[in-house]
C-alpha cells in the first residue's frame, strides 16, 4: 500500500512538469490549431539564456529567471509573427511540419551555442533534498514544481476569465472571424498566445534545469505533455492538466507493477485507449459549427 501511495505521489510530481508543457501546447492548439512540436525548444532556449545570464554576465538567479521568462515571451511572439503566420493557406500537416522545423532549428541553435555538455542550473533549493512523511518521500524540487504548476493554472484561469485580453483570446479561439469583427486584433492575440505558451513552457524548463541541463532535456516532457494534452482533449486547459497528471501516475504505476521496460512508452498506450473510448479526449468540448 505504501508503495502504491508513493508511486501516485511520484507520478503527480512528474506530472506537474508534463502539465505545464500540456498547458502550453493546448494554448497554442486553441489559437493556431496546430500540435506545437516546438513547445519544448521554445522553453529550452530561454533556459539556456538564463544559464548564460548567470555564468557569462553574472546576474543573480532571480534576475536571470525573469530574463528567461521575458525572453520566452518575445521568442513565442516572434515565432508566431515571423514564421507561423507567414504560412500561406496553411493546413494542419503543413503547420506541424513548420513546428517540427522550428524545433530542429532551435535545438540546433542551442546545441551549437552551448554544446552538448551536461550542466546544472543554480537554484536556491537543492534538487536532492526531500520532505519525508512517514515512509513516503517527496523531493523539495517536486513540491516546488507542483505548487508553481498549480499557481500558473490558477493565474491562467483568472486571466481567461476576467482580463480583457484573456476574454479576447477565448473569443479568438472560438470564432476568429466573429472576434475580428468585434474589434479584436486576432493576429495579435494569436501572437501573444504563443508568447504566453512559451513562457509557461519555460517555467517548466527552469524547474527541470536544476537537476540537469542538456539540449535534449525538454524532449521527453514535451512528448508526455503532448500525450497528456491529447488525453485531455487538446482544447481544454483543465483537461490538459488532468491528462498530464494521469500520464504521470499511470507511468509510475505501470513502471512499478507491470514493466519498467515499457514505462517510457505507456503514455502512448494511454492515448490509444482514451481515444478508443472517447475519441475527442476526456475533456473536449465540441463546437459544432453550422455552415
Amino acid at each position, binding site marked *: 500500500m505504501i*508503495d502504491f501511495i*508513493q*508511486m501516485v505521489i*511520484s507520478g503527480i*510530481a*512528474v506530472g506537474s512538469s508534463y502539465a505545464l508543457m500540456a498547458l502550453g501546447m493546448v494554448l497554442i492548439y486553441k489559437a493556431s490549431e496546430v500540435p506545437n512540436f516546438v513547445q519544448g525548444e521554445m522553453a529550452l532556449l530561454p533556459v539556456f539564456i538564463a544559464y548564460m545570464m548567470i555564468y557569462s554576465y553574472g546576474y543573480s538567479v532571480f534576475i536571470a529567471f525573469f530574463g528567461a521568462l521575458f525572453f520566452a515571451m518575445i521568442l513565442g511572439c516572434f515565432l508566431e509573427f515571423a514564421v507561423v503566420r507567414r504560412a500561406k493557406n496553411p493546413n494542419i500537416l503543413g503547420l506541424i511540419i513548420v513546428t517540427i522545423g522550428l524545433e530542429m532549428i532551435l535545438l*540546433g541553435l542551442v*546545441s*551549437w551555442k552551448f*554544446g*552538448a*555538455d*551536461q*550542466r*546544472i542550473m543554480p537554484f536556491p533549493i*537543492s*534538487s*536532492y*533534498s*526531500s520532505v*519525508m512523511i512517514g515512509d513516503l*518521500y517527496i*523531493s*523539495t524540487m517536486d513540491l516546488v514544481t507542483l505548487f508553481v504548476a498549480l499557481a500558473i493554472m490558477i493565474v491562467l484561469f483568472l486571466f481567461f476569465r476576467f482580463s480583457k485580453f484573456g476574454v479576447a483570446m477565448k473569443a479568438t479561439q472560438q470564432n476568429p472571424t466573429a472576434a475580428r469583427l468585434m474589434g479584436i486584433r486576432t493576429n495579435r492575440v494569436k501572437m501573444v498566445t504563443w508568447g504566453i505558451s512559451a513562457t509557461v513552457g519555460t517555467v517548466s524548463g527552469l524547474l527541470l534545469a536544476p*537537476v*540537469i541541463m*542538456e*539540449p*535534449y*532535456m525538454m*524532449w*521527453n*516532457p514535451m512528448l508526455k505533455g503532448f500525450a497528456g494534452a491529447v488525453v485531455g482533449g487538446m482544447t481544454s486547459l483543465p483537461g490538459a492538466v488532468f491528462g498530464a497528471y494521469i500520464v504521470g501516475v499511470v*507511468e*509510475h504505476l505501470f*513502471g*512499478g507493477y507491470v514493466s*519498467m*521496460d*515499457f*514505462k*517510457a*512508452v505507456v503514455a502512448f498506450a494511454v492515448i490509444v485507449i482514451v481515444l478508443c473510448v472517447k475519441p475527442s479526449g476526456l475533456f473536449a468540448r465540441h463546437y459544432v459549427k453550422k455552415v
Partner: protein
Amino acid sequence: MKKTLFAVLFGALVVFGMLSTGYCEIGVTDTEIHIGQWSPQSGPAAAWGAVARGTDAYFKWINANGGIHGRKLVHHYFDDGYNPARTIAGVKQLQEQRGMFAWVGGVGTAPGLAVKEYLMQKKIPWIGPAAGSWHWVTPPQKYLFNVYPLYLGDAQLLVEHAAKKMGKKSIAVVYQEDDYGEQGLAGTKHMLEKYNMELAAAVPVAMGDSDMRPHAMRLSRSNADAVLLFISPVAASRIIGIGKAMNYAPQWMSSSTCGDCPLMIDITQGLYEGVITSSFGMLETGEKVGDLQHINDPKHKLVAEYKKDVYGKFAARDERWGYTFVVGIGLAEPLVEAIKRAGRDLTRERLVEELEKMENFRGVLGRITYGPLDPNNPLTRIGQQELFLHQCTADGGSRILTNWIETEYIPMGH
C-alpha cells in the same frame, strides 16, 4: 574525333598521375595519409563528439611534429548525429569519393554495426571503435581492431570489488536498454553466478527516458547495498539524485562511461563523491595505488604531455579536457604506432601485419595486444582488456583503488 582524343589523353593523364605517386594504396599519397571517422557532433549523443575532436587534435599535434615518415595525417570526420543511416551514408561518401586509407574511432555500437559489413568487405582497416561491444570481436575480423575494453570487463571488476573487497551482500544493476547495458547486465549475472549470489534487482532504463523516480524506487525497495550503473551520465546523475532524496544510499558503482569524475561531480552537485567506477585511461598507477590523484596530475608524463601539447595547442577554445577527449586520443594511438612501424612503404596489408605484431603497447590507455588472426579466438583482435577502479572524491579528483587488472573475456552467445 578530337573529343575522343582528348578523352583518351585525359584518361591517360589521370592514370599516370596516380601512378606517379608510386603507391597503389587508397588514401596514401607521397605527403598524406587520409583517415576517416564519424561521431555525433549533434543530437542526443553529442557529448560523445569529443572523441573525434580528441583524435583530431592528436593528429594535428603529430603533423606539427613532422608527421609520420614524411606524411601528414589528414583527418576527415563527420557528424552522423548517432544516426546509423547517416553513418553509412557518410562513410560511403568519404570512402568512395575521397578515399580513406583507414578508419579510426567511430562512436556508438549501432552506427558502427551499420558500417562494419561495408568496411570489412572492402578490406578497409578500422581501428578502435568508440564503444565496448562484443560485436567487434565475435567473430574476429581481419581488418577490425578493437581497443575499447568490453563492458563485460567493467562488470567483472565492479562485482568482484563489491562482493569480495567490500563484502556487499546484495547487488542490483541498472542498465540502459541497448548493447552497452545488456553487456553490463550479462557480465554482472555471470559474476554473481560465480559467487553464488542472487541479483537483487535488474532495472532497465529506456533510451530518452528522463524520469528516473520509479527506477530509484525499485532499487530502494530491493534493499541492494551496491548498485551497478550501466547507463548514461545524465541518467546516472538523476538516479543517484533521486536515491539521495529518498534517503537511499547504497554503494553506487559505474562503468567507465560514467567514470569522468570532474564531470560527474559537477552534474550531480557533489553526490558522486564516493562512487566507484571502472576506468581504462588517463591515470598512472603502479606504486601510486591508494594515493589521491587527480586526472590532471602532471606526474603521468604522457597524460601531462598530451594535456599541454595536444589539448593545449590544438583543441578548440571551449573544449573540455575530459575523459571522452582523451579516449579519442587513446583509440588512435595504436593506429599511429602501427603506421610508424610500417615505415615509408605503407599499405593496408602492412598496417594489419604491424598491428598483429603489437604486444603490450602502452599509450594513455591500458596495454594493447593483438595476434595473428584466429577466427576462433577473439583475443587476437580484442586489444585492451585492462581496467582499474577508482573512487570519485568531492573535489572532482579520484582515489585509485586498484592497479590495472586484466579482465577475462566472457564468451556470450549473441
